[in-house]
């Protein structure tokens, strides 16, 4: 049993940068480039960790503790998720902890961005706070709907609800689509924020980490890849719940599921242009309405209305 838990944690620690590589590879294939190697992010992280950090004189200790703290918070959130086998930590109501751990990580990142005293990073922090507030409500409605479907407040039970099948139900598909969009928002991916641009007017996430260098930057990149991995795994599990089975089978299926979601993300990023900043709240409200609709359908199906 403990072996399974270790396996979960191992996957959570080792695999995430790989899927960032997959997304970048899909994008470069579609753009007709060779692109960076799939394992590029591992090299980047190791290179950065070997360097020294430079700290601005205007920063305080908050700025220094944030990268590692938010990495640990995101790892904790990942441990609540039944990745390849039942999750290491699980209790009734861990759904709410799951969401708020990410909110805490976001709060810390915003605080650190404000701590640099750069008005530029303050702008990014303000954007991040706005979009975070709007996407949180959608995440909660998605989780509420799943809670109603599975009738349990534990993520472990929610995402391993028996059927080892593609859940073909209109409301589940709607949840999947809405959560996919939220995944892109939360991780500052393409239609919302371009992870590769450093153009000041459009950045959201990149602008908040501009002052970091060396090992801190490496940790932040690593933490971001874990967050992306956890969200992609969650997105895949909405439509394709985890199976009960040996841990190697779970790992294999998980690998395929997250691979599929990363390829989807890569395709979406290749074929869409970044949305205008003023249109983003509108898209987020649209995804909120979509999940609300899914919630209503589910309540209706369960004869709760």
């Amino acid at each position, binding site marked *: 049993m403990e072996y399974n838990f270790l396996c979960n944690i191992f996957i959570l620690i080792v695999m995430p940068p790989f899927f960032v590589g997959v997304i970048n590879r899909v994008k470069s294939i579609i753009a007709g480039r060779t692109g960076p190697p799939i394992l590029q992010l591992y090299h980047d992280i190791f290179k950065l960790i070997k360097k020294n950090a430079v700290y601005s004189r205007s920063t305080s200790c908050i700025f220094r503790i944030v990268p590692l703290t938010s990495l640990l918070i995101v790892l904790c959130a990942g441990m609540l998720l039944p990745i390849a086998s039942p999750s290491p930590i699980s209790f009734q109501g861990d759904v709410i902890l799951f969401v708020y751990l990410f909110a805490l990580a976001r709060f810390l990142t915003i605080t650190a961005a404000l701590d640099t005293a750069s008005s530029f990073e303050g702008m990014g922090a303000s954007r991040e706070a706005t979009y975070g507030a709007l996407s949180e409500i959608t995440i909660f409605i998605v989780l509420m709907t799943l809670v109603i479907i599975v009738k349990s407040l534990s993520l472990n039970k929610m995402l391993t609800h028996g059927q080892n099948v593609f859940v073909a139900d209109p409301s589940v598909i709607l949840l999947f689509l809405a959560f996919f969009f939220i995944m892109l928002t939360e991780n500052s991916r393409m239609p919302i924020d371009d992870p590769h641009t450093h153009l000041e007017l459009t950045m959201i996430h990149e602008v908040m980490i501009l002052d970091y260098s060396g090992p801190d930057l490496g940790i932040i990149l690593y933490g971001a890849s874990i967050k992306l991995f956890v969200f992609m795994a969650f997105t895949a599990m909405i439509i394709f719940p985890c199976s009960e089975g040996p841990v190697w089978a779970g790992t294999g299926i998980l690998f395929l599921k997250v691979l599929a979601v990363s390829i989807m993300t890569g395709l979406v990023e290749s074929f869409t242009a970044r949305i205008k900043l003023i249109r983003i709240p509108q898209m987020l*409200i*649209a995804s*909120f*309405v979509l999940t*609300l609709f899914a919630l*209503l*359908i589910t*309540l*209706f199906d369960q004869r709760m*209305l």
Partner: protein
Amino acid sequence: MNWILVGIVLTTFVVLGSSRITTRIKAVAIQGGLLSVLQFVARGSLFDIHGALLFGITFFIKTIIIPLLIFRSIRGISMRVDKEPKVSSHSLLLTLGLITTISFLNINTFPLAVGATISSLLIPSALTTVLTGLLILVTKTKATNQIIGFLILENGVFTFGMTIVSEFPTIVEVGVLLDILVGVFIMGIMIYQINRTFDDIDTKSLSLLGDA
């Protein structure tokens, strides 16, 4: 059946949420296609001459003729994107959420008998479609958008009609479809006239008219 109903409501959402007129018209066309399939499914029996006839006519009118007519009437009108919406799209979308919730909550107050072949999701989705059509009609001032709002309103009424589809004579349905077709024709002509008089299809300019 649930899939089709969800599709109908989603196309309504697309119409309200998008900012391009061509997207809206396409969404209405898809909705028309879904409706024609819906009434086929609601009948229950597959090879029914009335059903097949109605399917053909509905599909032809709602998915091909009406969208083409609208496309034709906006040809030469440059306002393909509505630049300054009267009501912000944020509040429109939030109202849409409210409308959907209300339609689902009040389901028990409608004493409509839902047959065995018909999903109970039908009435709330029909109500959502009708109310959203109404919302589009009252919030958009461009004449083309009002046509689209009217069509969505009518599609919602059509969806309501599915509850009595088996007892309803086909000829009445076809008559209703013909009425709508004529309605869209007349509205197309009106768009042309408004555009020629005001160089714009904003219906707000109509309120400036007076006795000279």
